[in-house]
């Protein structure tokens, strides 16, 4: 339908748009930057942070680009004196309600701080601190996620993520006005809520008010990112391992997801992918095949030797007791293809239907 496609104007430039799109979406496609703090493409637009306000011709007020739907012939202005003044004062207000560093800028965190980046671009109005009585949960003993109320801008990305993406609803906005905070029912620790500790709230937080307890904050300057595939299950989530240290001593210090829209996991991870990386450096980790010898001890072997030993053992059982004396259990960490091969071994090679995959229970 041609009527669903039309042109709008952004800063005087004709941009092709489609019915149902927002100003923010069209601008992003055209490479026009509209700053925002509360927007996350995985969430319904909230229009709450007010950073993305733009001028819409014919509208008396500034309107949120993240939520404003385009219509034919609409004229948008994203940079003007009025918008500049709006940003200066708005950022000034945010800074009056935020922990600042020695230079009067929002503090840097291990997860960045988008408010700091915005403040560095536009000289914010210097306002006295408002000392909002925002309560945190200092006694929350969960091992992974820490909430820093002094860094929170109450954009509600975390609570909306927990609701709209994860459908877990462990956290909520609570109280009202300047007392508003991010809370759990009864201000309990996350372990005593429905929280699954996926850490998606950390990922979506624009100011680093939610951080990984296990990771150094901030990460050392030499940290580098290594893209890999999570091996905890067959979904194939992509991970960015943040590795610190040099060759011999390098360690994974943090795990994040590639940004939404780039990989199969769309910016999301589960508790295992995000937090369960300690095994990588664990001293008990088995790093090579082992075969138990006549002496009862385990001895290092090559893969060929190990596979041959396993095949021999399985063959002996089948010979003595029949194929149905065997059972095959594959790991939840296997991919679909690996699981297929496992049942192939079970059915075609050994002739038994005793095949199971551990995450099927």
């Amino acid at each position, binding site marked *: 339908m041609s009527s669903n496609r039309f042109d709008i104007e952004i800063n005087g430039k004709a941009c092709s748009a489609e019915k149902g799109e927002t100003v923010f979406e069209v601008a992003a496609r055209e490479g026009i930057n509209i700053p925002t703090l509360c927007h996350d493409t995985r969430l319904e637009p909230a229009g709450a942070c007010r950073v993305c306000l733009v001028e819409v011709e014919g509208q008396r007020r500034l309107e949120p680009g993240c939520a404003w739907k385009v219509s034919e012939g609409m004229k948008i202005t994203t940079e003007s004196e009025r918008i500049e003044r709006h940003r200066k004062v708005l950022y000034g207000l945010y800074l009056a309600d935020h922990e600042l560093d020695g230079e009067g800028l929002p503090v840097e965190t291990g997860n960045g701080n988008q408010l700091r980046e915005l403040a560095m671009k536009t000289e914010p109005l210097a306002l006295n601190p408002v*000392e909002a009585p925002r309560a945190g949960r200092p006694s929350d003993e969960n091992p992974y996620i820490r909430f820093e109320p002094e860094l929170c801008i109450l954009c509600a990305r975390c609570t909306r993520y927990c609701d709209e993406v994860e459908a877990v*609803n462990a956290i909520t906005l609570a109280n009202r006005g300047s007392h508003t905070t991010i809370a759990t029912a009864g201000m309990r620790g996350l372990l005593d809520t429905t929280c699954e500790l996926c850490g998606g709230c950390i990922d979506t937080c624009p100011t680093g008010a939610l951080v990984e307890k296990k990771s150094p904050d901030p990460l050392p300057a030499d940290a580098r990112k290594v893209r890999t595939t999570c091996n905890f299950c067959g979904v194939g989530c992509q991970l960015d391992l943040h590795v610190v240290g040099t060759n011999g001593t390098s360690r994974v210090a943090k795990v994040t997801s590639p940004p939404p829209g780039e990989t199969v996991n769309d910016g999301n991870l589960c508790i295992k992918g995000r937090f369960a990386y300690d095994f990588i450096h664990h001293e008990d980790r088995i790093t090579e095949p082992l075969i138990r010898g006549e002496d009862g001890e385990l001895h290092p072997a090559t893969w060929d030797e190990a596979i041959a030993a396993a095949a021999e053992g399985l063959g002996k059982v089948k010979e003595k007791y029949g194929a149905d004396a065997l059972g095959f259990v594959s790991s939840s960490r296997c991919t679909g293809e690996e699981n297929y091969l496992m049942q192939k071994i079970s059915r075609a090679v050994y002739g038994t239907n005793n095949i199971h995959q551990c995450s099927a229970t």
Partner: protein
Amino acid sequence: MQKKGAQRERILHLLEEEGGVTEDAVRRISAETGVPEADIWGTGLFYTLVSKPGKRVRVCDGLSCRIKGSDELLERLSEEGKECERVSCLGQCDRAPATLDENLEQVCYGGVERGVTPDDPSLPMNLGGPRVDSYASLEKAKEIGSDAVIAEIEAAGLQGRGGAAFPAHIKWRSVRGQTETERYVICNADEAEPGTFKDREIILRQPHLLLEGLAIAAHAVGAKNVAIYIRGEFTSERRMIEKAIDEAGEKISGFDWKIYNGHGAYICGEETALIESMEGKRGMPRLKPPYPTEYGFRGKPTLMHNVETAACVPAIVSRGGEWFKGLGRNEPGTKLYCVSGHVNRPGVYELPLGVTLDELVEVAGGYDGSPIAFSPGGPSSGFLPISDRDVPLDFKSLAKAGSMLGSAGLVVLNDTVDMAKATKWQLDFFERESCGQCAPCRIGTRYLRRQVDSYLADGDPNSLEFAGDVGWEMEEGSICGLGMVAAKPLESAMKHFPEVFEERSSE
């Protein structure tokens, strides 16, 4: 998991029954309704009537009550050993200082003479007259049909009397024209703009006019469901509505009537916040568009009117739109003006829309002392100097004067009042009642209040250096009307009373 829908709509009522938010109450309600515990916790803590369990006396700190000694009363009651709480305007400004007992029933400590326009059958609402409960206008509306009714509303030029003055017929036509047939009519009886108590008087004195107006509206827009959202502090008013629905019986039985309680949040007078509240959520205003006429309660087309707007409808239908229009001066109809503060007979007076302050106060028994300022429509309208006493009290004229009529809750201040302090009281109100959703309002209201506090403490006007910028941003950048006007008290006071904010010796 019940994120929305019928179960979710119950949670605030259940919290009320439980006596407020506690961990145990939240757990029980979650088990019963399937709504996540965190959602119930977060929603409950938004509303002052349920956020803190236990019972206590509530003392109003609205402007009229402050100037009539609510601070002293609070102190006295506390000394008597009563657990007391300072709360935002209770809508009882004519009996200032207003107080509610532990069960939210009114206690009268104010001894002033109160007034209401005496019986005059020519007035559309005639609060001082006998109750009108014939429902003849509803019958007539059914006879002449929806188009004719809406045409009369249009001819009457009826503007929304909650404060926005939006033409009523546009909303009626919009709801009537929606393809969705499940539609709602909602009455906004969450009267909470400080200085305003007209809806209360309509409900207590002419409840059937309200029901009839809503029924006519529902019939005209094709809605079967009529909901009345009444502020939780209005206990006797709620009982009156229940009784009136009962009395009306058959006459209004073609509609499903439902009463929803507010739970202590001024912001729920904003229409989309009110809808969120009815849906069992935190009363945070929605982004508009879409407007409620298209996407309202439960996402369905919704016609929402203030109590007074609805109560004007029966007279318009029975006597005609032209007649109603002719009652006003510059704008159509009569208007219920609430007046309190430094006047001799505070009350609700039905006068032609567009009278002046002097005319109004004359009806209200004259000024008490030497007036210096007035606030035409609650804190949202800021202050005007008494030299503006000739500005017609209508929507357009007051907007031109940089203020607004709003809900017509006029408060008169005499020369015993320190305007800087009065400003601070109004800012207190907005800081406490900001929903906290958007930064300009959440941070701005607190910033301004603190800066005025700082000025009051040390008399240094530098505290207010950036007040203009912050006020500008609150008006430009806030999501809803609360944030947009929350700087008005300071802005207008600094404009009209600059001498008050000059350097002064500290207190």
